[in-house]
């Protein structure tokens, strides 16, 4: 159990909490996930279909707001669902929990999706969460951070699949070999960044900016997305097993309908949405400031240029797979349809 907490693959500044509080929070969560669901439900439970949602991280944070809002503001119930939220022991285990039937609908990164398909795990992405790649390198306010300044520096990594996949692109763009930088891995980047133990950290804008801003009172510097040389693909998706898609497609449809309604509502009522999250998970370890700033930075990521939610494209999956093959993370580029379907999108 203790070790498991270590296997967490972590993105952004999620690990501002220490490990101790995670285990405490975990216990609290088990209880509070029940309260999330009971909050809006008046109709008897038997009329609702149960769905187990598995997050990508062992504890809740503001990216969970659409699910929290859907539960607390009655969007799930309106769609005939009763959704329980589960937290995996580690990020990479979400796909495994889906394949073993411990979860129905999962929240994973697109790189998790790619390695799952490579490993012949029967997983299917049913919707994008975000539409663009907002991952990059970040440093303390006022630091010198350009691709040219990377050589010889210590760069923090969470050691997860996504970060492992992205760093080679950065090095390639900077014309550096792996040995030109020191990749260090740890449990929490912010303190290390603050006291100069590391030069740069890796994260996404919606996690790095609130975290570093909270710690330093001013915004970090960063190079993000194509500026950092990484392929412009969505970071997170909703995924199910082929089995679940075939047998419970209706549930997936209802789920995405509820999430869409909840996301639109949460984008319009941001303060209320954050309040819902804090009420559902008072011990998440994140401040109201952090969650508010994080959610504000997340909202624009959720729609494509046409203002649509969820829509996946052949191009995004081909780009990702080709890029990952280029760095030898996967061996072959399968047909994009192997990865996804848009047929459940409302």
């Amino acid at each position, binding site marked *: 159990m203790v070790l498991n907490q270590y*296997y967490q693959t972590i993105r952004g500044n999620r690990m501002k909490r220490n490990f*101790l509080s995670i285990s405490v929070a975990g216990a609290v969560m088990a209880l509070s996930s029940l309260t999330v669901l009971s909050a809006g439900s008046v109709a008897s439970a038997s009329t609702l279909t149960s769905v187990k949602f598995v997050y990508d991280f062992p504890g809740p944070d503001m990216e969970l707001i659409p699910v929290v809002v859907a539960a607390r503001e009655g969007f799930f119930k309106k769609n005939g669902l009763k959704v329980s939220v589960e937290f995996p022991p580690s990020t990479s285990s979400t*796909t495994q929990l889906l394949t073993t039937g411990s979860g129905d609908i999962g929240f994973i990164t697109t790189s998790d999706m790619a*390695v799952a398909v490579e490993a012949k795990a029967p997983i299917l992405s049913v919707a994008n969460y975000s539409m663009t790649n907002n991952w990059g390198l970040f440093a303390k306010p006022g630091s010198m951070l350009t691709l040219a300044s990377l050589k010889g520096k210590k760069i923090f990594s969470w050691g997860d699949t996504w970060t*492992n996949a992205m760093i080679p692109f950065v090095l390639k763009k900077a014309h550096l070999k792996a040995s030109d930088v020191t990749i*260090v*891995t740890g449990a929490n980047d912010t303190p290390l960044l603050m006291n100069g133990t590391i030069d740069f950290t890796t994260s996404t804008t919606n996690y790095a900016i609130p975290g570093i801003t909270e710690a330093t009172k001013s915004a970090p510097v960063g190079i993000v997305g194509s500026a950092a040389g990484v392929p412009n693909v969505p970071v997170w998706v909703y995924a199910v097993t082929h089995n679940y898609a075939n047998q419970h497609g209706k549930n997936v449809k209802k789920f995405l309908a509820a999430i869409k309604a909840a996301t639109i509502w949460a984008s319009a009522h941001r303060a209320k949405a954050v309040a819902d999250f804090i009420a559902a998970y008072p011990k998440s370890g994140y401040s109201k400031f952090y969650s508010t700033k994080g959610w504000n930075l997340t909202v624009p990521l959720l729609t494509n240029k046409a203002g649509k939610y969820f829509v996946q494209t052949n191009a995004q999956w081909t780009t990702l797979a080709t890029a990952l093959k280029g760095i030898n993370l996967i061996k072959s580029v399968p047909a994009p349809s192997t990865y996804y379907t848009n047929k459940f999108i409302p």
Partner: protein
Amino acid sequence: MTKKKLLVNIFGPILSVVVLISIWQSIVVWGHIASYIAPKPLDAVRSVTSNWSTLAPLTWWTIKETVYGYLAGALLGAFLGVILSKIPLMQRVLYPLLILTQAIPIIALAPPLVMILGFGVMPKVVIVAWIVFFPVTVSVLDGLNHVDKDLLTLAKVFGANPLRRFVVLEMPAAVTQLFSGLKIGATYAVTGAIIGELAASSGSSLALYQRSASGALDAAGVYGTTLIMTAIGIVWFLLVVGVEFLATPWQRRSTARRWRRGAKPVLPNN
């Protein structure tokens, strides 16, 4: 040791490992468990051998962290055990503090250690030592506190000073206990090194390799690295048992080897 006992001692453990692996293999095969959930035992081993050029240096690092940390912890533990036993005031002042050190979750310890000691071998060594020292301290303290009081009185009558009493009587008397602490420490040491590696690593480490394998749904890689970690732990434990075996011949032999001190060959009767 009789021949039969010897056979049981050697083949017993082998048999239990074989049975365990067979159960593992049959569950995976008959349960149709997907290879990304749990691998067949042989696949886990193959994953180690085919990636050995990558894994060997990582394994070597983990071994170093384990051994350095263990030796530091054992020395510190024995030293503290002696201090606590010899200075009653220390027992009162230091003992609660020592218990406190063990109540702190090791994982909470790692981040500040990384800040102070960086990403190299040092924080891992400290974590391993932190885990190992305590059982050693407790066992040494216990051993020293249970030395036969009459024996110490006898030594006093013989005119021995306290230092000689300690070196000649108390230290050897505590050796049996010391080894029980050392053995407990040996089983924990590699866990400490892995926790340290997960908390902070520069470049790569066995623990990170495992984490990446886990992220890539490479269950054979995950189980394979687990096998390596387990092997380090077992080999180290057996080494400690071996040292105990050599260091405490009186527990298993009726006569000393001739070359042992105080065991001059018996002169023929005149």
